[in-house]
C-alpha cells in the first residue's frame, strides 16, 4: 500500500537570531498564524514576536506545590493525632513545629515534579517522530541554525504565495517538509 505524503509546511533557514525575529515579524504582519520558530537555544524576544501567552507551566508548579504541602501536613497530622498517637510526657499530639520540615520538603518535591511533567505534557514530549525531522537540514536546529516554519494548515497558506513570501525574506534556504520522508 502506498500512502500519499502530505505537505506539513515550508521551512526557512537563517544563520542568526535577528533575521529569524525579523522573519516572524513579517509573517505575523502578513497574517500567518500557524507558525513556529525553531532555535538551538532560547532566543530572547522570539516568544514575544510569536505573541505567546505566559506559559501555563507555572500553574502546574503552584498546584503541585500546594498538593505537596497538603499531603505532607495531612499525612503527619492524621498519623500523629488519629492513627498512631504517642503520648510523650503529655506533649501535644499535633506537634506542628516538627512537621514543618517534611511539609516543606514535600512542597518542593511535588511542585518540582509536577512542573517538569507539566512542561513535558504541554510540549507533547516525548514525541520521537515529527515531520520536521524528515528534512535533513533541520539537523542543524540543535547546532547553529535558526528555522521558521509556516504550516500547511494555516488558512492563508498557498503553495506558491507562501513559498515566494519566505524566499523574499532572504533566508539561507527554504524547504518543503512532508509528513513522510
Amino acid at each position: 500500500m502506498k500512502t500519499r505524503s502530505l505537505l506539513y509546511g515550508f521551512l526557512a533557514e537563517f544563520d542568526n537570531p535577528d533575521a529569524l525575529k525579523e522573519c516572524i515579524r513579517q509573517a505575523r504582519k502578513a497574517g500567518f498564524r500557524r507558525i513556529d520558530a525553531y532555535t538551538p537555544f532560547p532566543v530572547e524576544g522570539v516568544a514575544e514576536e510569536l505573541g505567546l501567552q505566559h506559559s501555563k507551566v507555572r500553574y502546574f508548579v503552584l498546584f503541585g506545590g500546594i498538593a505537596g504541602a497538603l499531603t505532607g501536613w495531612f499525612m503527619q497530622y492524621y498519623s500523629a493525632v488519629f492513627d498512631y498517637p504517642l503520648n510523650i510526657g503529655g506533649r501535644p499530639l499535633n506537634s506542628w513545629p516538627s512537621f514543618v520540615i517534611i511539609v516543606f520538603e514535600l512542597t518542593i518535591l511535588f511542585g518540582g515534579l509536577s512542573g517538569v511533567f507539566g512542561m513535558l505534557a504541554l510540549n507533547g514530549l516525548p514525541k520521537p517522530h515529527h515531520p520536521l525531522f524528515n528534512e535533513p537540514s533541520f539537523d542543524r536546529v540543535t547546532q547553529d541554525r535558526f528555522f521558521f516554519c509556516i504550516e500547511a494548515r494555516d488558512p492563508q497558506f498557498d503553495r506558491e504565495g507562501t513559498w515566494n513570501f519566505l524566499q523574499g525574506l532572504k533566508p539561507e534556504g527554504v524547504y518543503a517538509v512532508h509528513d513522510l520522508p
Partner: protein
Amino acid sequence: MMREELPEATYTPPLVGPGQTYSTITEKISSIVLSPHTPLEWFAVAGLAFTGVMMLFYSLAYLLVRGIGIWGVNIPIAWGFAIVNFVWWIGIGHAGTLISAILLLMHQAWRQSINRFAEAMTLFAVTCAGLYPLAHLGRPWFFYWLIPYPNTMDLWPQWRSPLVWDVFAISTYLTISFVFWYIGLIPDLATFRDRAQNRFVRLIYGILAMGWRGSARHWHHYETVFVLLAGLATPLVVSVHTVVSLDFTISILPGWHATIFPPYFVAGAIYSGFAMVLTLAIPLRKLYHLEDLITMRHIQNMAKLMLATGMIVAYSYVIEAFTAWYSGSNYEQFTFMNRLLGPYGWLYALLILTNLIVPQALWSARVRGKTLAILAVALSVNVGMWLERFIIVITSLHRDFLPSSWGMYYPTIWDISTFLGTIALFVMLFFIFIRLLPMISVFEMKQIIDKPEVRVE
C-alpha cells in the same frame, strides 16, 4: 576595551575565549563525547577508580555479612566515619545546586560553562553520601521502614525525629537535582542525536532527548519551568544542610546544641563544594583543552566564592568559642577546650591550618592567577572540611557529661576502605559522565556568547 590599555592587575579574563561561534562551541563540546577516541588519561583514572569501586563493594559486602562491628564505632562514639563522610559528601553536593540554581536566578553569566558538571558532581556526591546512613543502619535491608507506607505492623515513621526529616530532605534533594540536571540535558542530548554518525548512538541519544526539536513554544514552557525549578531548588539546598545540622543540634550534647549550626553548616557545605568543583574543573580543562570555555575568570570567581564562604566558616568557629564561653556552662566550655587541647587536639590544629589559614592565600591576586596554586588550596579545603566534620562528630561524642562513659574512636581498615571506596565511586561515576554526556551545557553557552559583557576583545 583593548587589553593593552589595562594594567595587568585590573585585566578581567573573558568568559569565552576569542573566536568562539555557535558551531565551534557545539563542535568542541560534542566532539569530546562523540569521538571514538578516548584519552589514555581517562582509562588510567577510570581504571584506578574501578579498582576502588571493587574495594567498596567488597567492604560493603563484608559489612552486610558481619555487621557494623567491623567499623570502629562503639559506645560512646556510635557515629564515627559513617556520619563524618555522610556530612562531607552531602556538603560537597551543595556547590552544584548553588551554581545551577542560585547563580541562575542572579543572572550570573559565568555559571553557564560550569553548571552541568557541577550538577553531575552534586548527584554523585549525594549518591555517595546516601550510602553511609544506609550502611550504618545495621540492618540496611529494612531501610524502607523510614518511608511512610501502609504496612502490616500498623506503624508510622516518627515525624518528630530529625533522622526522618533527613530521609525526606535528602531524597527530595536527590530527586529535584536529578530532574533539574536531566531537563537541562534534553536540548544537548538532541544536539548529540543530530550530530551522531553511528546509528546506535543516534538512537540512544534520540530516546533520551525525547524528540526535542527546539520549537519556540517548547522553549517558552521550558524556560519558565527551568527558572521555577531554580527557585524551588534554592530554598531546598539551604534546607538540606540545615536538616543535616538539625541531626546534631536537636540533641542536647555539648558542642552540638547550638543555634549557629544551620547557617554554619550551609556555609561550610558551599565552601567544600566549591573546593570540589575546583578540584575537578582545573584538571578537566587541562585534559580536554577547555581553556576557551572554562576560562581563568570562572576559576577566579569560584576561588573568590570559596574564600567568601570560608570566611563565614571562620566566623562560625569564632562564634562557637564565644558561645561556649558566654554560655557559662561547664560542659560547653569543657567540650570546647577538649577540642583544642584534648586527644584530638592535633586534628583541630590541622583543621585550622587547612581550612582557615591556607585559604587566606586567595586574597592575593597572584595566587588567584595560577591554577595550580588554586588547586592546592582547594585540596587543602577538601581535607579541612572533612576534618571539621570529624571534629564535630567525634569530639562531642567521645567525652560527654560523665567521665566514666568517656572513650576514644579509632577507624578500622574497613572504615578507611569504605571511605576511599566512595571517593573511587564518585570519580568513576564522574568519568563515565564526562565520556557519555556533555560536561558543559552546549545550549546555555550559545545563549551567552553574543552578550557584550562576556567578551573582552
